[in-house]
């Protein structure tokens, strides 16, 4: 589905020495301490860290549900504190963990919440609702007049996303949006969300406690630690390959080497020439993640596998050694697309 012109708004986001202290100053839970980072327009930035590290607080500093004690939050270079708060919030999409769909309104009315607040004509609201439901993979005819209580968790999450996108926001704030569903549904939602993002390229600030989700979803990751401090800010590859502190290293886990392998695919791997094609050699399509390929090779009975190109023809041989080398070549592999597009 092609991106429509109405869906191209995206602002840059910057936190400049932002702090939030409650009463007794210092490192209380939920406090934020001198947070500074910048997210270019159209990128997904994930705030990740243990409970109480201030990630949700940081999120709420953007739409001013919480206001900073010091520092500035800048949207497209403009301090959010200088804008009228209700108008600001209507330009920001907000998805919370429990989704927060209004139970007394139909799906259609829920999705149209912000357009309705902004006074859009009814027909325009209708059209937008249909467009958005389609965008998140739900048939408008079937869903528009249903009530949230009649829907499954996964359906509700999608509608929550649709609702947040309704007024073509400058930025999306998402607070553990996929945490409340089971792992299989979660993975599907994550995939669909990434697909959606490829089309509409919104600036997104995404909070999660799950490092795997952060690596999967983020173009940029901000690792936060207790006390609301930024432990490290960088691409997933940076965080995994060069953790800035013991805390970050522990947080990403001992298996960060393997995690880095899920950032690369067979398509980018340097393959060895294919000598002989033996029976039982596993085949890998270009989109297969190196981590999965490694996993399969480790239990295969053959020495290597076959890398295929997009048309399905063999390209070369994939071995465990080749994969290990790819890992060792620090950052020279294409990996994830860096944020400065």
């Amino acid at each position: 589905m092609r991106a429509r012109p109405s869906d191209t708004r995206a602002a840059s986001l910057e936190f400049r020495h932002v702090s939030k202290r409650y009463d007794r100053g210092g490192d209380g839970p939920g406090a934020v301490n001198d947070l500074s980072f910048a997210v270019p327009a159209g990128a997904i930035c994930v705030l990740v860290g243990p409970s109480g590290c201030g990630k949700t607080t940081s999120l709420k500093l953007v739409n001013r549900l919480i206001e900073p004690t010091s520092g500035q939050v800048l949207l497209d270079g403009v301090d959010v504190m200088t804008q009228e708060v209700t108008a600001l919030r209507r330009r920001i999409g907000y998805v919370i963990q429990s989704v927060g769909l209004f139970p007394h309104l139909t799906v259609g009315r829920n999705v149209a919440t912000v357009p309705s607040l902004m006074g859009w004509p009814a027909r325009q609201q209708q059209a937008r609702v249909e467009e958005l439901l389609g965008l998140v993979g739900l048939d408008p005819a079937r869903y528009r007049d249903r009530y949230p209580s009649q829907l499954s968790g996964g359906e509700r999450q999608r509608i929550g996303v649709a609702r947040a996108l309704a007024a073509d926001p400058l930025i999306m704030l998402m607070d553990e949006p996929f945490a409340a569903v089971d792992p299989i549904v979660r993975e599907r939602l994550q995939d669909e969300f990434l697909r959606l993002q490829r089309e509409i390229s919104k600036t997104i600030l995404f909070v999660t406690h799950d490092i795997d989700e952060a690596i999967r979803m983020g173009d940029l990751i901000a690792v936060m630690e207790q006390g609301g401090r930024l432990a490290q800010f960088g691409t997933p590859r940076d965080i995994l390959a060069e953790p800035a502190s013991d805390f970050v290293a522990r947080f990403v886990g001992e298996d960060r080497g393997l995690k880095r392998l899920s950032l690369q695919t067979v398509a980018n791997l340097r393959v060895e020439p294919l000598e002989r094609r033996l029976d039982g050699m596993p085949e890998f399509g270009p989109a297969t993640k190196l981590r999965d390929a490694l996993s399969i090779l480790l239990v295969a009975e053959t020495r290597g596998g076959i890398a295929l190109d997009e048309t399905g023809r063999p390209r070369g041989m994939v071995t465990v050694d080749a994969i290990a080398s790819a890992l060792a070549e620090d950052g020279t592999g294409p990996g994830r697309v860096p944020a400065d597009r």
Partner: protein
Amino acid sequence: MDLAAQTSGWLLDPGNWQGPNGIPYRLAEHVALCGASLLIAAIVAMPLGLWLGRAGRLSWLIVSSTNAWRALPSFAVIGLLIPVTTAIDPSLGFTLYPTVVAMILLAGPPILVNAYEGIAAVDRDLVEAARGMGMRERQILLGLEIPLALPVLATGMRSAAVQVIATATLGGTFGFGGLGRYIVLGDANHDNGELFGGVVLVAALALATLAVFRLAEWRLVSPGLARSPAT
């Protein structure tokens, strides 16, 4: 049965449909005063309950109100208001005032308590989501909190209405008019037709009110909300 014949005879007698002791008059009296008391009680109790519930304050008041309402027999309340009214103005003690005041006092607690509970039960996350989306406080109250609290609010209004009708009926013994008067007069005059005519009218009014409130609830409450567990 002779009783049925007497009752229907009385009900159908056109003479009973005219004048200040006629059915339309007494019915109107009953309904009007019930409605007025309910309205007054609602004007005071509903906003108070909503405000307190939203702020989560003074929950002891709510608990006391619930208990008081349960423990106060309306008969006793009307009865006790008579000396009180008499102390204020002796000529009013034995008229409709004690009954009306009792009606308002007894309608208050269910409305207050249910308004409080109804609003307090609204998920705070939803309110924050609404705020985060750019709804103003008044829009949140009117467009989100009240619709969500409506089932409980409506139950409170319905309980209050039933209570008020019963109290008004009781008032027939104490100098209030209304349909209860027929029961009292019928008893005094040994006129079974009148007595049971009154009973039938009262029962019909009460059940009709119940039906009207249930119907209103059904229409007003969003189909997306689960039915309130209290009857």
